[in-house]
């Protein structure tokens, strides 16, 4: 009986959450519509035009098979390489203080320098194309993962390490059962940020210097003043971030954080 009541409350809570989000989306669409009506269509495409253009772009023969595909590959490799580099360096820096101090200036430079400068320099080094885009993406993203890995390493509970020492846990058990999960929480939020930024950086570098990819299509839409196309591509990049977050990152995070009391499963 009581359990039933609990479940019913959980469902109504979830329903409320969905309703709130839906209201937000409707409000956004409404304001968008309003803005497109008051401004000329040359500046803001209406939602309707945007959705039409969206459908058209997706059915264009070359788009999905080439531009979309190439951008997705660049995002994947850029994010993976950047995250892997940040993670490995973060572990090492977490273990060795001298190493961390040595890396600090590099981290600071990478996190402070405007992205556009990194893009321009890499275009000089690598020319236009995938290597340039992947390089920029991983270089700009690695510090984020690096920082959250270090944060995780330093948040390892010393009491747990003491317990591990008393029970003679091997280094392997300590890493697997204590360190990795202590890193997982900050790392998970780092990864979410990195995926979102990955899409942004890839598209930005494609706009500035590539002859393929979503960013390239975006930049030609701008040149041709094809406003609905422009908006449709923005919508597409939003969807990429949203879909990976909702179907990949959130479930992984939920699974990883099962042990927390307030994880509503």
């Amino acid at each position, binding site marked *: 009986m009581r359990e039933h009541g609990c479940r019913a409350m959980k469902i109504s809570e979830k329903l409320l959450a969905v309703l709130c989000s839906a209201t937000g989306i409707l409000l956004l669409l409404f304001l968008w519509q309003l803005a497109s009506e008051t401004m000329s269509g040359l500046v803001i495409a209406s939602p309707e035009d945007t959705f039409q253009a969206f459908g058209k772009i997706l059915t264009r023969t070359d788009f999905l098979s080439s531009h979309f595909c190439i951008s997705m590959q660049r995002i994947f490799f850029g994010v993976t390489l950047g995250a892997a580099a940040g993670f490995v360096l973060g572990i090492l820096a977490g273990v060795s203080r001298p190493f961390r101090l040595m890396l600090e200036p590099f981290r600071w430079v990478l996190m402070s320098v405007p992205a556009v400068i990194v893009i321009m320099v890499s275009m000089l080094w690598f020319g236009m194309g995938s290597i340039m885009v992947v390089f920029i993406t991983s270089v700009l993203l690695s510090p984020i993962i690096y920082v959250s890995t270090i944060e995780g390493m330093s948040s390892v509970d010393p009491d*747990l390490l003491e317990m591990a020492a008393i029970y*003679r846990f091997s280094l392997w058990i300590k890493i697997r059962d204590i360190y990795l999960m202590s890193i997982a929480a900050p790392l998970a939020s780092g990864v979410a940020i990195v995926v979102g930024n990955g899409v942004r950086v890839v598209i930005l570098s494609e706009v500035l210097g590539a002859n393929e990819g979503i960013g390239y299509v975006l930049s030609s839409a701008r040149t041709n003043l094809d406003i609905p196309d422009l908006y449709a591509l923005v919508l597409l990049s939003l969807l990429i971030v949203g879909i990976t977050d909702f179907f990949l990152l959130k479930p992984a995070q939920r699974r990883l954080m*099962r042990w927390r009391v307030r994880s509503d499963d």
Partner: protein
Amino acid sequence: MIEFDRVTKKYKDLTVLDDVSFSISRGEVVGMSGQSGVGKSTILKLIAGILQPSSGRVRIQASRLGYVFQESRLISWKTALGNVTLPLRARGICPYEASATGRRLMDWLGLHGFEDTFPARLSGGMQQRVALARALAIKPDLLLMDEPFNGLDPHLKDNIFNLLEKKIEKDLTTVLYVSHYLEELSRLASRTIHFKGGKLT
């Protein structure tokens, strides 16, 4: 089993143990009392070998050490059973055997049905019993307990003591039990050490 020979322990300028000597023989159950901050935990850590004396010698003969901390010190992302079996796994015992031992101990401590529960969803008393099960899982020949059941309700405490008493007697475990409740100490221990101002009395 345990021998402290003129042990002094300093943390920087703070002398916590001042020329302390005592010994505990195999199979003895000893209680230790003393006000908080006097250095009881320090003694246990010296015995466990995670602290080294500033001078003097600590000699320990124990191959399997069980330790119950003041806080439960469970790994939050491992289930209750996962926590109990980890010391066994660390000693190379196969998962099947480890989990059988763990389940048996949890049943015995009244934790049946909570094997797959994460610590955060257990009450404080249950968490401490899980920690006790973890300490007993390796069949310790030396069991150190650092004010393990503070703040538990008296009825539950009584229960745990009954179980523990039998177990200790059966396995001939050497026990050093720290608490500032004297009645608790006299219940379990055959001898109590009182600790004051860096000295034993």
